[in-house]
């Protein structure tokens, strides 16, 4: 767990050093990682500064004046919390996950591949979601276990219409910038207990006519897990080695599939069935 305290809004001041790491989205700096005396400073330009303690157990967030609270909350939930969990040694994937027959199946991939849409679509059809954007794993047991994340899902407007079939009033909603966050409830069931991770689907970006799955080799699986996981200390050899070993453990113990599907909302039911069939075949 991480204890996050909010401070009064303040403008972001220039920093003396260059960041040791950076996330960029469409050629724009989305998050910058700095080292400071007490640990780390994560700067989300024009949004919020977050100082995280060295052991990643405590953080202080200083939002930029007039930034919507929902945007700051999104950064804290979907970026800072998983990064802090990784800083505590946890394995956290950039994935959503749902429950099918009492085990969890995960959808792994970068932003925009459909993780949230699939999770919401499964949930609306009786398969509760257990995580939306960041999936923490417990590797210490005989089975790898998915830990429940925040009980909400963020959807773009077009996905919202497709998932809720025009009746989003059933879900509790909160607007952020480009997506709407929907709280779990009877329209969007959430699993609040850990569940064995049964398999992982890497969401592809090929142009295809029909949904299909193909199992990937363990080394390709490891590459995909590395690409789509959170790591706070990207320049610390011990942390990197541990992260690598944990993800290799996942690649060896959990089947990983490539999932390709047409980018049309009307095929969501077919995608759902393809996933269910593939999971049942294991």
């Amino acid at each position, binding site marked *: 767990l991480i204890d996050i305290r909010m401070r009064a809004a303040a403008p972001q001041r220039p920093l003396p050093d260059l960041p040791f790491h950076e996330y960029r989205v469409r050629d724009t700096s989305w998050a910058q990682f700095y080292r400071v005396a007490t640990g780390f400073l994560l700067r989300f330009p024009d949004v919020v500064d977050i100082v995280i303690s060295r052991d990643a157990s405590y953080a202080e967030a200083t939002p930029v004046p007039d930034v919507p609270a929902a945007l700051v909350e999104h950064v804290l939930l979907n970026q800072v919390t998983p990064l802090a969990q990784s800083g505590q040694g946890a394995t956290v994937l950039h994935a959503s996950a749902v429950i099918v027959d009492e085990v969890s199946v995960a959808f792994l991939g970068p932003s925009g591949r459909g993780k949230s849409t699939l999770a919401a679509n499964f949930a609306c059809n009786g398969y509760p979601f257990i995580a939306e954007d960041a999936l923490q794993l417990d590797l210490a047991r005989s089975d790898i276990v998915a830990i429940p994340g925040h009980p909400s899902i963020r959807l773009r407007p077009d996905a919202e219409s497709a998932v809720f079939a025009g009746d989003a009033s059933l879900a509790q909603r909160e607007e952020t910038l480009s997506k709407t966050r929907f709280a779990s409830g009877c329209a969007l069931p959430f699993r609040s207990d850990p569940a064995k991770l049964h398999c992982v689907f890497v969401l592809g970006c090929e142009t295809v006519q029909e949904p299909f799955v193909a199992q990937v080799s363990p*080394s390709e699986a490891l590459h995909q897990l590395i690409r789509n996981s959170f790591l706070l200390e990207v320049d610390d050899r011990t942390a990197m080695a541990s992260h690598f*070993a944990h993800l*290799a453990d996942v690649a060896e113990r959990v089947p990983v599939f490539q999932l390709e599907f047409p980018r049309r909302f009307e095929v969501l039911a077919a995608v759902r069935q393809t996933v269910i069939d593939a999971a049942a075949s294991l």
Partner: protein
Amino acid sequence: MNMEVLVHEGVMTRAVGNEIVLLDLEAGIYYGLDAVGARAWQLWAGKHGFDDVLTIMCEEYDVERSTLASDLTELLRRLEQARLVTVTPSPSA
């Protein structure tokens, strides 16, 4: 001429299935080796020289020695270029 292949200290390896993934801890870069490359890596890391590896793998795989020699030379060139290994003449050569 037989050659020795020295794996750099900051390289972490992990066999997954019959393949190997390498992590260069210094640069933070990951590399993958397929089953054949993984076998060569295992032998080089086990202190076998280039010619020894060639002989062993010719017995294990249905391949012409010259073809395998060419493939292993290219693999070594790329591993050296990525600064994962250093290739030196064997002292006994």
